[in-house]
Protein backbone atom coordinates (compact mmCIF):
# COMPACT_ATOMS: atom_id res chain seq x y z
CA UNK A 1 0.00 0.00 0.00
CA UNK A 2 2.86 2.39 0.70
CA UNK A 3 4.15 3.66 -2.60
CA UNK A 4 7.88 4.00 -2.89
CA UNK A 5 7.93 7.08 -5.01
CA UNK A 6 9.41 10.47 -4.44
CA UNK A 7 6.01 11.73 -3.32
CA UNK A 8 6.42 10.00 0.02
CA UNK A 9 8.85 12.75 0.90
CA UNK A 10 6.05 15.25 0.69
CA UNK A 11 5.31 13.99 4.17
CA UNK A 12 7.09 16.47 6.41
CA UNK A 13 8.14 13.86 8.90
CA UNK A 14 9.89 11.70 6.37
CA UNK A 15 11.33 14.76 4.77
CA UNK A 16 12.88 15.90 8.03
CA UNK A 17 14.58 12.55 8.47
CA UNK A 18 15.89 12.65 4.94
CA UNK A 19 17.03 16.20 5.38
CA UNK A 20 18.86 15.33 8.55
CA UNK A 21 20.95 12.83 6.66
CA UNK A 22 21.46 14.78 3.48
CA UNK A 23 22.29 18.17 4.91
CA UNK A 24 25.75 17.35 6.26
CA UNK A 25 26.57 15.29 3.17
CA UNK A 26 25.57 18.01 0.75
CA UNK A 27 27.32 20.58 2.88
CA UNK A 28 30.61 18.75 2.71
CA UNK A 29 30.36 18.07 -1.00
CA UNK A 30 29.51 21.70 -1.63
CA UNK A 31 32.38 22.96 0.47
CA UNK A 32 34.91 20.66 -1.16
CA UNK A 33 33.79 21.30 -4.71
CA UNK A 34 33.54 25.05 -4.42
CA UNK A 35 36.93 25.40 -2.77
CA UNK A 36 38.49 23.05 -5.31
CA UNK A 37 36.91 24.76 -8.23
CA UNK A 38 37.79 28.26 -7.14
CA UNK A 39 41.35 27.64 -6.04
CA UNK A 40 42.17 25.42 -8.97
CA UNK A 41 40.65 27.97 -11.27
CA UNK A 42 42.38 30.91 -9.69
CA UNK A 43 45.83 29.58 -8.97
CA UNK A 44 46.49 26.72 -11.31
CA UNK A 45 45.15 27.71 -14.69
CA UNK A 46 47.19 29.76 -17.12
CA UNK A 47 46.22 33.28 -18.06
CA UNK A 48 44.16 33.64 -21.16
CA UNK A 49 46.28 35.23 -23.86
CA UNK A 50 43.68 37.83 -24.70
CA UNK A 51 41.99 38.69 -21.44
CA UNK A 52 44.75 37.94 -19.02
CA UNK A 53 43.75 36.40 -15.75
CA UNK A 54 40.39 38.16 -15.86
CA UNK A 55 38.63 35.27 -17.54
CA UNK A 56 38.89 33.40 -14.24
CA UNK A 57 35.87 35.30 -13.08
CA UNK A 58 33.86 32.69 -14.95
CA UNK A 59 34.42 30.37 -12.00
CA UNK A 60 31.96 32.43 -10.00
CA UNK A 61 30.04 34.07 -12.80
CA UNK A 62 28.93 30.99 -14.72
CA UNK A 63 27.78 28.84 -11.77
CA UNK A 64 25.87 31.70 -10.21
CA UNK A 65 24.15 32.67 -13.46
CA UNK A 66 23.35 29.05 -14.18
CA UNK A 67 21.82 28.63 -10.75
CA UNK A 68 19.97 31.93 -10.83
CA UNK A 69 17.98 30.73 -13.81
CA UNK A 70 17.56 27.13 -12.77
CA UNK A 71 16.42 28.00 -9.27
CA UNK A 72 13.63 30.05 -10.76
CA UNK A 73 12.75 27.08 -12.95
CA UNK A 74 12.65 24.87 -9.85
CA UNK A 75 10.39 27.42 -8.16
CA UNK A 76 8.11 27.33 -11.18
CA UNK A 77 7.79 23.55 -10.91
CA UNK A 78 7.33 23.67 -7.15
CA UNK A 79 4.63 26.33 -7.49
CA UNK A 80 2.87 24.25 -10.12
CA UNK A 81 2.94 21.19 -7.86
CA UNK A 82 1.51 23.25 -5.02
CA UNK A 83 -1.35 24.58 -7.10
CA UNK A 84 -2.21 21.16 -8.49
CA UNK A 85 -1.41 18.66 -5.77
CA UNK A 86 -1.38 20.90 -2.70
CA UNK A 87 1.73 19.39 -1.13
CA UNK A 88 2.73 21.93 1.48
CA UNK A 89 6.35 20.97 1.19
CA UNK A 90 6.34 22.02 -2.42
CA UNK A 91 5.24 25.52 -1.57
CA UNK A 92 7.83 25.64 1.20
CA UNK A 93 10.51 24.49 -1.22
CA UNK A 94 9.81 27.41 -3.53
CA UNK A 95 9.75 29.83 -0.61
CA UNK A 96 13.04 28.46 0.69
CA UNK A 97 14.75 28.54 -2.67
CA UNK A 98 13.97 32.15 -3.54
CA UNK A 99 16.53 33.95 -1.35
CA UNK A 100 19.25 31.62 -2.59
CA UNK A 101 18.24 32.41 -6.16
CA UNK A 102 18.34 36.10 -5.38
CA UNK A 103 21.82 35.76 -3.90
CA UNK A 104 22.88 34.02 -7.09
CA UNK A 105 21.60 36.84 -9.25
CA UNK A 106 23.59 39.32 -7.16
CA UNK A 107 26.74 37.30 -7.59
CA UNK A 108 26.14 36.86 -11.29
CA UNK A 109 25.47 40.52 -11.94
CA UNK A 110 28.34 41.87 -9.85
CA UNK A 111 30.88 39.36 -11.13
CA UNK A 112 29.68 40.14 -14.62
CA UNK A 113 30.17 43.82 -13.98
CA UNK A 114 33.69 43.27 -12.66
CA UNK A 115 34.44 41.25 -15.74
CA UNK A 116 32.85 43.70 -18.08
CA UNK A 117 34.63 46.86 -17.10
CA UNK A 118 38.20 45.92 -18.02
CA UNK A 119 37.19 43.62 -20.87
CA UNK A 120 34.51 45.50 -22.72
CA UNK A 121 34.80 48.88 -21.06
CA UNK A 122 31.54 49.02 -19.21
CA UNK A 123 29.98 47.72 -16.01
CA UNK A 124 26.56 47.30 -17.53
CA UNK A 125 24.83 47.34 -20.89
CA UNK A 126 21.18 47.01 -21.76
CA UNK A 127 21.50 43.96 -23.91
CA UNK A 128 18.87 41.20 -23.78
CA UNK A 129 20.75 38.88 -21.48
CA UNK A 130 21.61 41.47 -18.88
CA UNK A 131 18.16 43.03 -19.02
CA UNK A 132 16.74 39.55 -18.50
CA UNK A 133 18.87 39.19 -15.39
CA UNK A 134 17.68 42.52 -14.08
CA UNK A 135 14.09 41.39 -14.57
CA UNK A 136 14.90 38.08 -12.87
CA UNK A 137 16.27 39.94 -9.86
CA UNK A 138 13.09 41.97 -9.64
CA UNK A 139 11.00 38.82 -9.95
CA UNK A 140 12.84 37.24 -7.05
CA UNK A 141 12.50 40.32 -4.87
CA UNK A 142 8.78 40.66 -5.61
CA UNK A 143 8.21 36.99 -4.88
CA UNK A 144 9.99 37.16 -1.54
CA UNK A 145 8.14 40.31 -0.54
CA UNK A 146 4.77 38.78 -1.41
CA UNK A 147 5.42 35.90 0.98
CA UNK A 148 5.90 38.36 3.83
CA UNK A 149 2.76 40.31 3.01
CA UNK A 150 0.30 37.58 3.91
CA UNK A 151 0.11 35.75 7.20
CA UNK A 152 -2.15 32.88 6.34
CA UNK A 153 0.24 30.24 4.95
CA UNK A 154 -1.99 28.57 2.37
CA UNK A 155 -3.16 31.84 0.94
CA UNK A 156 0.40 33.15 0.80
CA UNK A 157 1.44 29.96 -0.98
CA UNK A 158 -1.37 30.42 -3.52
CA UNK A 159 -0.56 34.05 -4.27
CA UNK A 160 3.17 33.54 -4.58
CA UNK A 161 2.70 30.45 -6.73
CA UNK A 162 0.53 32.39 -9.15
CA UNK A 163 3.11 35.16 -9.24
CA UNK A 164 5.89 32.70 -9.95
CA UNK A 165 3.91 30.94 -12.66
CA UNK A 166 3.02 34.13 -14.48
CA UNK A 167 6.57 35.35 -14.06
CA UNK A 168 7.93 32.21 -15.68
CA UNK A 169 5.53 32.55 -18.58
CA UNK A 170 6.63 36.12 -19.10
CA UNK A 171 10.28 35.17 -18.83
CA UNK A 172 9.83 32.57 -21.55
CA UNK A 173 7.87 34.99 -23.67
CA UNK A 174 10.58 37.63 -23.37
CA UNK A 175 13.22 35.12 -24.33
CA UNK A 176 11.41 34.20 -27.52
CA UNK A 177 10.57 37.79 -28.25
CA UNK A 178 14.25 38.66 -28.14
CA UNK A 179 15.18 35.70 -30.32
CA UNK A 180 12.53 36.73 -32.82
CA UNK A 181 13.77 40.30 -32.65
CA UNK A 182 17.37 39.35 -33.28
CA UNK A 183 16.69 37.13 -36.25
CA UNK A 184 16.55 39.87 -38.81
CA UNK A 185 19.50 41.76 -37.40
CA UNK A 186 23.11 40.87 -36.89
CA UNK A 187 23.94 39.09 -33.68
CA UNK A 188 25.31 41.83 -31.53
CA UNK A 189 28.21 41.16 -29.25
CA UNK A 190 26.70 40.02 -26.03
CA UNK A 191 28.07 38.72 -22.81
CA UNK A 192 27.03 35.29 -23.97
CA UNK A 193 27.47 32.35 -21.71
CA UNK A 194 27.93 30.13 -24.73
CA UNK A 195 31.30 31.64 -25.37
CA UNK A 196 32.57 30.41 -22.06
CA UNK A 197 31.40 26.89 -22.70
CA UNK A 198 33.71 26.71 -25.66
CA UNK A 199 36.77 27.47 -23.61
CA UNK A 200 39.65 25.11 -23.62
CA UNK A 201 39.68 22.00 -21.45
CA UNK A 202 42.21 23.40 -19.09
CA UNK A 203 39.68 26.02 -18.04
CA UNK A 204 36.73 23.70 -18.25
CA UNK A 205 37.58 21.20 -15.52
CA UNK A 206 37.77 23.59 -12.58
CA UNK A 207 34.58 25.15 -13.94
CA UNK A 208 32.88 21.80 -13.64
CA UNK A 209 33.89 21.55 -10.01
CA UNK A 210 32.69 25.04 -9.40
CA UNK A 211 29.29 24.46 -10.99
CA UNK A 212 28.76 21.17 -9.16
CA UNK A 213 29.84 22.81 -5.93
CA UNK A 214 27.37 25.62 -6.35
CA UNK A 215 24.56 23.19 -7.14
CA UNK A 216 25.24 21.19 -4.00
CA UNK A 217 25.50 24.42 -2.07
CA UNK A 218 22.03 25.30 -3.27
CA UNK A 219 20.66 21.90 -2.28
CA UNK A 220 22.36 22.21 1.11
CA UNK A 221 20.80 25.60 1.74
CA UNK A 222 17.45 24.52 0.36
CA UNK A 223 17.17 21.59 2.76
CA UNK A 224 18.23 23.67 5.75
CA UNK A 225 15.73 26.39 4.90
CA UNK A 226 12.92 23.94 4.23
CA UNK A 227 13.52 22.27 7.56
CA UNK A 228 13.39 25.67 9.24
CA UNK A 229 10.06 26.35 7.57
CA UNK A 230 8.64 23.04 8.77
CA UNK A 231 9.74 23.82 12.31
CA UNK A 232 8.14 27.24 12.06
CA UNK A 233 4.87 25.66 11.00
CA UNK A 234 5.10 23.30 13.94
CA UNK A 235 5.61 26.21 16.30
CA UNK A 236 2.60 27.98 14.88
CA UNK A 237 0.52 24.83 15.21
CA UNK A 238 1.51 24.43 18.84
CA UNK A 239 0.81 28.06 19.58
CA UNK A 240 -2.59 27.76 18.05
CA UNK A 241 -3.38 24.77 20.20
CA UNK A 242 -2.16 26.54 23.29
CA UNK A 243 -4.21 29.57 22.38
CA UNK A 244 -7.44 27.60 22.32
Amino acid at each position, binding site marked *: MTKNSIWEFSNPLKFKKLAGILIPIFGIIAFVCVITGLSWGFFYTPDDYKQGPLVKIIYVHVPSAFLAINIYLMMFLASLIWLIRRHHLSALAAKAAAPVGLAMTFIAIVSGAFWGKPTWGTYWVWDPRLTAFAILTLFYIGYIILWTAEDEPDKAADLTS*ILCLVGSV*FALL*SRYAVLFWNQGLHQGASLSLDKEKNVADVFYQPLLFSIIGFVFLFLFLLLIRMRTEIWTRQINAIQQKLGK
Partner: protein
Amino acid sequence: MSFTANGTAILGLVFFITVIFVSALGFDINSTDFNLIGPSLIWVTALLSVLLSAKNLIQDDFRDGSLDLLLISPIPLELVLALKAFAHWISISLPIILICPVISVLFTIPFDNLIILIIGLFLGTPALSFIAILGASLTFSLRRSSILMPILIMPFYIPTLVFGVKIVNFTENTNEYHINGLLILLAITLLSMSVLPFAAAMGVKSCLK
Protein backbone atom coordinates in the same frame (compact mmCIF):
# COMPACT_ATOMS: atom_id res chain seq x y z
CA MET B 1 -18.86 49.13 -14.34
CA SER B 2 -16.78 51.06 -16.75
CA PHE B 3 -18.84 54.18 -16.76
CA THR B 4 -18.22 54.90 -13.14
CA ALA B 5 -14.62 55.00 -14.24
CA ASN B 6 -15.12 58.14 -16.23
CA GLY B 7 -13.96 60.19 -13.32
CA THR B 8 -10.87 58.07 -13.31
CA ALA B 9 -10.42 58.62 -17.01
CA ILE B 10 -10.17 62.36 -16.69
CA LEU B 11 -7.96 62.10 -13.65
CA GLY B 12 -5.76 59.62 -15.46
CA LEU B 13 -5.36 61.90 -18.41
CA VAL B 14 -4.60 64.93 -16.26
CA PHE B 15 -2.07 62.87 -14.36
CA PHE B 16 -0.43 61.83 -17.61
CA ILE B 17 -0.21 65.36 -18.97
CA THR B 18 1.05 66.78 -15.71
CA VAL B 19 3.77 64.20 -15.28
CA ILE B 20 4.92 64.62 -18.87
CA PHE B 21 5.19 68.37 -18.45
CA VAL B 22 7.00 68.18 -15.16
CA SER B 23 9.37 65.45 -16.30
CA ALA B 24 10.14 67.28 -19.51
CA LEU B 25 11.08 70.33 -17.51
CA GLY B 26 13.46 68.18 -15.54
CA PHE B 27 15.56 67.75 -18.63
CA ASP B 28 17.86 70.26 -20.20
CA ILE B 29 15.64 71.74 -22.87
CA ASN B 30 18.47 73.17 -24.88
CA SER B 31 20.48 70.02 -25.25
CA THR B 32 20.34 68.42 -28.65
CA ASP B 33 19.17 65.13 -27.22
CA PHE B 34 16.02 66.57 -25.73
CA ASN B 35 13.80 65.54 -28.60
CA LEU B 36 14.93 61.97 -28.30
CA ILE B 37 13.43 61.51 -24.88
CA GLY B 38 9.89 62.03 -26.13
CA PRO B 39 8.84 58.48 -26.88
CA SER B 40 10.52 57.10 -23.79
CA LEU B 41 8.92 59.65 -21.54
CA ILE B 42 5.52 59.04 -23.07
CA TRP B 43 5.78 55.29 -22.60
CA VAL B 44 7.03 55.51 -19.03
CA THR B 45 4.39 58.03 -18.04
CA ALA B 46 1.70 55.91 -19.68
CA LEU B 47 2.97 52.98 -17.68
CA LEU B 48 2.80 54.93 -14.46
CA SER B 49 -0.68 56.17 -15.25
CA VAL B 50 -1.92 52.64 -15.77
CA LEU B 51 -0.16 51.37 -12.69
CA LEU B 52 -1.29 54.02 -10.29
CA SER B 53 -4.90 54.02 -11.40
CA ALA B 54 -5.22 50.27 -11.20
CA LYS B 55 -5.01 49.60 -7.52
CA ASN B 56 -8.69 50.01 -6.90
CA LEU B 57 -9.82 47.81 -9.74
CA ILE B 58 -10.71 45.00 -7.42
CA GLN B 59 -10.36 46.51 -4.01
CA ASP B 60 -13.45 48.68 -4.29
CA ASP B 61 -15.61 45.70 -5.14
CA PHE B 62 -14.01 43.76 -2.34
CA ARG B 63 -14.72 46.51 0.17
CA ASP B 64 -18.36 46.95 -0.65
CA GLY B 65 -19.00 43.25 -0.94
CA SER B 66 -19.86 43.08 -4.59
CA LEU B 67 -16.88 40.82 -5.27
CA ASP B 68 -18.62 37.97 -3.51
CA LEU B 69 -21.67 38.59 -5.66
CA LEU B 70 -19.53 38.42 -8.77
CA LEU B 71 -18.28 35.01 -7.71
CA ILE B 72 -21.80 33.67 -7.51
CA SER B 73 -22.99 35.22 -10.74
CA PRO B 74 -23.37 33.04 -13.84
CA ILE B 75 -20.74 35.08 -15.66
CA PRO B 76 -17.37 33.38 -15.19
CA LEU B 77 -15.03 35.33 -12.96
CA GLU B 78 -12.35 35.20 -15.63
CA LEU B 79 -14.57 37.07 -18.03
CA VAL B 80 -15.50 39.65 -15.42
CA LEU B 81 -11.87 40.36 -14.69
CA ALA B 82 -11.04 40.50 -18.39
CA LEU B 83 -13.80 43.03 -18.89
CA LYS B 84 -12.56 45.07 -15.96
CA ALA B 85 -9.09 45.13 -17.49
CA PHE B 86 -10.49 46.08 -20.86
CA ALA B 87 -12.59 48.86 -19.35
CA HIS B 88 -9.52 50.09 -17.56
CA TRP B 89 -7.65 50.21 -20.85
CA ILE B 90 -10.42 52.19 -22.47
CA SER B 91 -10.59 54.70 -19.68
CA ILE B 92 -6.88 55.22 -19.11
CA SER B 93 -4.79 54.23 -22.11
CA LEU B 94 -7.09 55.21 -24.92
CA PRO B 95 -7.21 58.89 -23.93
CA ILE B 96 -3.44 58.84 -23.67
CA ILE B 97 -3.16 57.43 -27.16
CA LEU B 98 -5.54 60.05 -28.47
CA ILE B 99 -3.68 62.89 -26.91
CA CYS B 100 -0.33 61.60 -28.08
CA PRO B 101 -0.15 63.70 -31.24
CA VAL B 102 -0.62 66.83 -29.16
CA ILE B 103 2.02 65.80 -26.65
CA SER B 104 4.42 64.85 -29.41
CA VAL B 105 4.61 68.49 -30.37
CA LEU B 106 6.48 69.16 -27.14
CA PHE B 107 9.27 66.92 -28.33
CA THR B 108 9.02 67.51 -32.07
CA ILE B 109 8.66 63.85 -32.84
CA PRO B 110 8.78 63.26 -36.58
CA PHE B 111 5.52 62.06 -38.12
CA ASP B 112 6.74 58.60 -39.09
CA ASN B 113 8.01 57.92 -35.62
CA LEU B 114 4.81 59.25 -34.16
CA ILE B 115 2.83 56.71 -36.14
CA ILE B 116 4.96 53.89 -34.84
CA LEU B 117 4.68 55.26 -31.33
CA ILE B 118 0.92 55.41 -31.47
CA ILE B 119 0.46 51.99 -33.02
CA GLY B 120 2.88 50.60 -30.47
CA LEU B 121 0.94 52.19 -27.63
CA PHE B 122 -2.29 50.86 -29.06
CA LEU B 123 -0.96 47.33 -29.32
CA GLY B 124 0.99 47.31 -26.11
CA THR B 125 -1.06 49.16 -23.50
CA PRO B 126 -3.82 46.54 -23.19
CA ALA B 127 -1.14 44.23 -21.82
CA LEU B 128 -0.44 46.83 -19.15
CA SER B 129 -4.05 46.86 -18.02
CA PHE B 130 -4.31 43.09 -17.98
CA ILE B 131 -1.10 42.76 -16.02
CA ALA B 132 -2.44 45.37 -13.64
CA ILE B 133 -5.57 43.35 -13.01
CA LEU B 134 -3.38 40.39 -12.15
CA GLY B 135 -1.51 42.57 -9.69
CA ALA B 136 -4.75 43.82 -8.22
CA SER B 137 -6.08 40.28 -7.85
CA LEU B 138 -3.02 39.18 -5.91
CA THR B 139 -2.83 42.14 -3.58
CA PHE B 140 -6.31 43.51 -2.95
CA SER B 141 -6.72 41.82 0.39
CA LEU B 142 -3.24 42.56 1.67
CA ARG B 143 -2.20 45.45 3.82
CA ARG B 144 -0.07 48.08 2.11
CA SER B 145 -1.34 46.84 -1.20
CA SER B 146 -0.93 50.25 -2.82
CA ILE B 147 2.85 50.14 -2.55
CA LEU B 148 3.07 46.40 -2.98
CA MET B 149 1.27 46.15 -6.28
CA PRO B 150 3.58 48.42 -8.29
CA ILE B 151 6.60 46.55 -6.94
CA LEU B 152 5.21 43.22 -8.07
CA ILE B 153 3.94 44.42 -11.40
CA MET B 154 6.77 46.60 -12.69
CA PRO B 155 9.01 43.75 -13.88
CA PHE B 156 6.18 42.49 -16.07
CA TYR B 157 5.97 45.85 -17.75
CA ILE B 158 9.60 45.85 -18.82
CA PRO B 159 9.27 43.82 -22.06
CA THR B 160 6.39 45.96 -23.35
CA LEU B 161 8.23 49.11 -22.40
CA VAL B 162 11.49 48.04 -23.99
CA PHE B 163 9.95 47.03 -27.27
CA GLY B 164 7.57 49.96 -27.35
CA VAL B 165 10.38 52.44 -27.04
CA LYS B 166 12.94 50.57 -29.11
CA ILE B 167 10.91 50.56 -32.29
CA VAL B 168 10.50 54.32 -32.28
CA ASN B 169 13.99 54.59 -33.57
CA PHE B 170 15.37 57.63 -35.20
CA THR B 171 18.08 56.06 -37.28
CA GLU B 172 17.01 52.63 -38.41
CA ASN B 173 13.94 52.79 -40.52
CA THR B 174 13.55 49.44 -42.17
CA ASN B 175 9.94 48.37 -42.18
CA GLU B 176 10.85 44.94 -40.92
CA TYR B 177 12.35 46.47 -37.81
CA HIS B 178 9.15 48.24 -36.92
CA ILE B 179 6.85 45.40 -37.88
CA ASN B 180 8.78 42.85 -35.85
CA GLY B 181 8.58 45.06 -32.82
CA LEU B 182 4.89 45.73 -33.25
CA LEU B 183 4.26 42.02 -33.64
CA ILE B 184 6.06 41.39 -30.40
CA LEU B 185 3.97 44.01 -28.63
CA LEU B 186 0.87 42.41 -30.03
CA ALA B 187 2.06 38.98 -28.93
CA ILE B 188 2.65 40.19 -25.39
CA THR B 189 -0.78 41.75 -25.30
CA LEU B 190 -2.55 38.70 -26.71
CA LEU B 191 -0.75 36.41 -24.29
CA SER B 192 -1.68 38.67 -21.40
CA MET B 193 -5.30 38.85 -22.44
CA SER B 194 -5.63 35.10 -22.77
CA VAL B 195 -3.68 33.90 -19.74
CA LEU B 196 -3.90 36.57 -17.10
CA PRO B 197 -7.67 36.57 -16.48
CA PHE B 198 -7.35 32.94 -15.43
CA ALA B 199 -4.43 33.67 -13.14
CA ALA B 200 -6.24 36.68 -11.72
CA ALA B 201 -9.36 34.61 -11.09
CA MET B 202 -7.27 32.09 -9.19
CA GLY B 203 -5.88 34.91 -7.10
CA VAL B 204 -9.30 36.31 -6.29
CA LYS B 205 -10.71 32.92 -5.37
CA SER B 206 -7.85 32.08 -3.03
CA CYS B 207 -8.32 35.38 -1.23
CA LEU B 208 -12.01 34.86 -0.75
CA LYS B 209 -11.97 31.35 0.62
